[in-house]
């Protein structure tokens, strides 16, 4: 059974990537909102924000990248929902394939689509003056954290993708995730926030991830934030994976 896992996943991954290639609007609409935030905050609000030294776009980019991923995974849920509703999911499940490859193909597609969106946003940021002297190792570390964050949110997206009753229901879960960076260190330093808000901002996952990526871009030694960031990503990943698997087994005998 499992001997076909890699082959089947590759075939199904090819199928979903073809979907994306034929409707590149899903990549475009994923990047529109983060790019709009980037423009708005750099050219409208940014001048009034005291963030410390350096260009504000450089300060802002890590949070914007997380928003990009959060808005991208709503399509992961949507694509899965379409397969469930269209009956092709059941067709695959009744075939002699490694059954888990159907979900894994969706997960890997989500990873590829989000990395493309993130690359587009980074290019726009470069055009707007984002600069980093970070070396290859630091960039790899940034990529690794973003991949882990994407995987965690992707498995989270699998849950509504499998169980939603409508397309809106499938993608609506991502809205709170998109707005989580606003109450974090992504846009402004948390020091100016009232105590209860600051307590929340300092202790939610986005702040530690943003701080880590920011340190990596700035070539500063990363603080203990990196361990908090990794713990959040892995924790969300494990819990979401478990719930996604449970949802899957409820749907398929």
């Amino acid at each position, binding site marked *: 059974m499992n001997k076909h896992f890699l082959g089947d996943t590759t075939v199904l991954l090819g199928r979903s990537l073809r979907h994306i290639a034929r409707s590149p609007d899903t990549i475009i609409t994923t990047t529109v909102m983060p790019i709009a935030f980037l423009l708005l905050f750099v050219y409208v609000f940014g001048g009034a924000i005291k963030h410390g030294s350096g260009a504000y776009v450089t300060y802002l980019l890590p949070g914007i990248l997380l928003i990009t991923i959060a808005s991208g995974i709503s399509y992961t849920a949507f694509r899965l929902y379409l397969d469930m509703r269209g*009956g092709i999911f*059941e067709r695959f499940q009744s075939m002699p394939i490694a059954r888990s490859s159907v979900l894994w193909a969706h997960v890997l597609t989500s990873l590829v689509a989000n990395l493309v969106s993130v690359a587009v946003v980074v290019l726009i940021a470069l055009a707007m003056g984002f600069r980093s002297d970070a070396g290859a190792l630091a960039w790899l570390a940034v990529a690794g954290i973003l991949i882990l964050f994407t995987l965690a949110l992707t498995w989270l997206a699998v849950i509504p993708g499998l169980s939603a009753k409508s397309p809106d229901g499938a993608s609506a879960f991502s809205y709170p995730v998109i707005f989580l960076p606003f109450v974090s260190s992504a846009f402004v330093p948390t020091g100016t926030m009232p105590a209860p808000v600051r307590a929340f901002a300092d202790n939610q996952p986005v702040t530690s991830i943003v701080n880590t990526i920011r340190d990596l871009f700035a070539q500063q030694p990363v603080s203990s934030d990196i361990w908090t960031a990794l713990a959040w990503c892995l924790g969300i990943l494990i819990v979401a994976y478990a719930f996604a698997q449970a949802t899957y087994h409820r749907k398929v*005998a």
Partner: protein
Amino acid sequence: MTVQQAQAIHVQGLEKSYKKVSVLHGVDFDVARGSIFALLGPNGAGKTTVVRILSTLLKADAGTASVDGFDVVTQPASVRESISLTGQFAAVDEVLTGRENLTLVARLRHLKYPGKIADDLLERFSLTDAAGRKVSTYSGGMRRRLDIAMSLIGNPPVIFLDEPTTGLDPQARIDVWQAIRELTTHGTTVLLTTQYLDEAEQLADRIAILHQGRIIVNGTLAELKQLLPPAKVTYVEKQATLEDVFFAIVGDDGKSAGTADDHSTAAHTS
């Protein structure tokens, strides 16, 4: 054991309820190899539930079922090697082309030469002209034919067709019937569910009527007809049916207009 092996499908005492709603209470039937067996019943009779259990998508609460000699609970992987499911709604990929849909299934069945398999089936189901078009542009009848073609890949010995002609126009329906009849000439066993009496009459070697979660009658068409008192001969003037009129106007055998321009009449039920 020998009886079980001689049967392509063996179902005994199948029970299933969803939450508190009991759908199947004790379904028994056998399907002989190479035959077409129709499970006839109104909407909600439990036809789809039976098909989902037999295709290992759903677990029964009680009873046993085997397909091609393999138990659906203990040997699901072997069952999936032996079957193909054509669900109630054409399970095709709308974004891919017809040919890509076929090669996708051929690859997932781990067959050699997926391109050649696809081309042969496109030819057999008169879809060659539409092969390179996205399935979202297909009519209901074309979608259904593609759907059935996808089920034939790898020549599975048992094929489940769940309401294959629901929502199709008369011409597309005849095309699908023709395709189903051809299957049995290759020795394939077909389990067909339908709510149309004439469909069962046209296609099936044996017909079972599923009513309120039980099989209430099971036999050949001739046997079922004997359940009624013998026919009395009366003379009735032969009136043309609407179907006769339809085909007289549109074309005699329904082939001429069956491929591309049945867009408007092909309702896609949901």
